């Protein structure tokens, strides 16, 4: 692994922002790479978890928020489970996601932020997830209508997905929770 650091450029490093959001101390990492070895998506990313930590330690700036691992990471928590220093890498990934959205980093392949918004929007509206609307909103936003369409008829036939919106949740409280977060 070769990490190139651009010298002479005034890059504002983001390690302290990440550490604060995730509640971790990244100086504890001594690069044993257990996280990267156990990571199920290591083979699909340009920068596995241990490299992300090293980059942050070496003073990475906002450019790290465009790393593909941030959104390929499936939050399986294997990195955290196996870290000999007990670093909560899954929370580091969450922190990087929050910063990536806030600082408008490049849209990742698959547009997971859009999926998250569609998911949370239905929760905000109905108090519970409404798969059908969430999937439709995501597919409209990403123009991927045809993906998985072959599965839809049998899912409907087997009633494997709800057609009607969910009912029964305390929508008022859920809305209050969403409002409190957006006004934070």
């Amino acid at each position, binding site marked *: 692994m070769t990490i190139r650091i651009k010298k002479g450029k005034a890059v504002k490093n983001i390690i302290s922002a990440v550490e604060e959001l995730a509640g971790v101390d990244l100086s504890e990492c001594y690069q044993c790479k257990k996280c990267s070895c156990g990571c199920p998506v290591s083979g699909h990313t340009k920068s596995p978890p241990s490299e992300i930590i090293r980059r942050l330690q070496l003073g990475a700036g906002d450019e790290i928020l465009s790393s593909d691992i941030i959104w390929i990471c499936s939050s399986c928590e294997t990195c955290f489970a196996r870290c000999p220093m007990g670093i909560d890498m899954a929370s580091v990934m969450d922190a990087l996601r929050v910063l990536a959205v806030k600082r408008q980093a490049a849209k990742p392949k698959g547009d997971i932020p859009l999926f998250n918004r569609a998911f949370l929007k239905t929760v905000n509206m109905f108090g519970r997830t409404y798969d059908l609307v969430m999937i439709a909103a995501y597919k409209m936003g990403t123009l991927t209508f045809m993906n998985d369409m072959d599965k839809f008829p049998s899912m409907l036939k087997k009633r494997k*997905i709800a057609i009607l919106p969910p009912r029964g949740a305390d929508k008022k*409280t859920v809305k209050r929770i969403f409002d409190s*977060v957006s006004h934070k």
Partner: protein
Amino acid sequence: MKYAYYPGCSAESTARDLHSSSIAVARRLSIELIEPDGWSCCGATPAHQTDRLLAASLPAFNLILAMEMGLDMVVNCAECFSRLKMTNHEVVNHTEIRKQIGATIGRDYDGSVNVRHFIEILLEDVGIDFLQDKFTHSLSGLKVACYYGCLLVRPQEITQFDNPENPVSMDRLINVMGGESLDWPHKVECCGAGLALTRTDVVVHLADSIIGMAKDAGADCIAVACPLCQANLDMRQSDINNEKGRHYDMPIVYISQLLGLCLGISMDALGLRKLMVSPSCVIHAVSAVV
């Protein structure tokens, strides 16, 4: 035995089979499951990827409902289980988050509700001996690869479920049912369910390696406890077969459906017809205990 039962959103949509089979099994074992009035979504992965306070507040509301009922909370979905347990951890360790939740919901939550997975209830409260007495049917040697996935077992400090690298809870149940649980290496590998819609290319690889390993270990079926793992491993098989030239035909069955079969509950009540890959080899293996 009486519990607050948190079904989770998938129980009303993609995992009605998990819900109905668990309810049927609980009824047969005289376990009373009471849904808290007004329960809402736990926020799942999209919430914790978006905002830490949101990720704790949504589960906290549901935990408050259980606290007011004065009961332990039983959960089926591994994602919900993980988020509810994480919230207990957040509330206990971060007074600021506890305060903010209290201010928003208008009720204080101290993190005291005991969150337990349905499997834990069966093993710890009902007990293996009692279960064995109740079984009218046996899996008669059916070879089962028990798949636990990620969020039941990780992180161990939070979920406190079994062993994070080699859990055996489901295996114990399979063996009591007369099946043969297999020793295989992919029990806690990630199937990528969270990326099912967004990064299908990655998910096909992950699911392929899990199903392939179960097949190589000689499994007749894979037993799961999580609705996301089930949907992902079940529905992706046709894509894997097309893209990778495999010939998978591996039933992905909920542990509650297998328990239901051994308790003599009907296929329809267990939602077995909802599975994409037909579980016929499982159903043929079931025989009456003489």
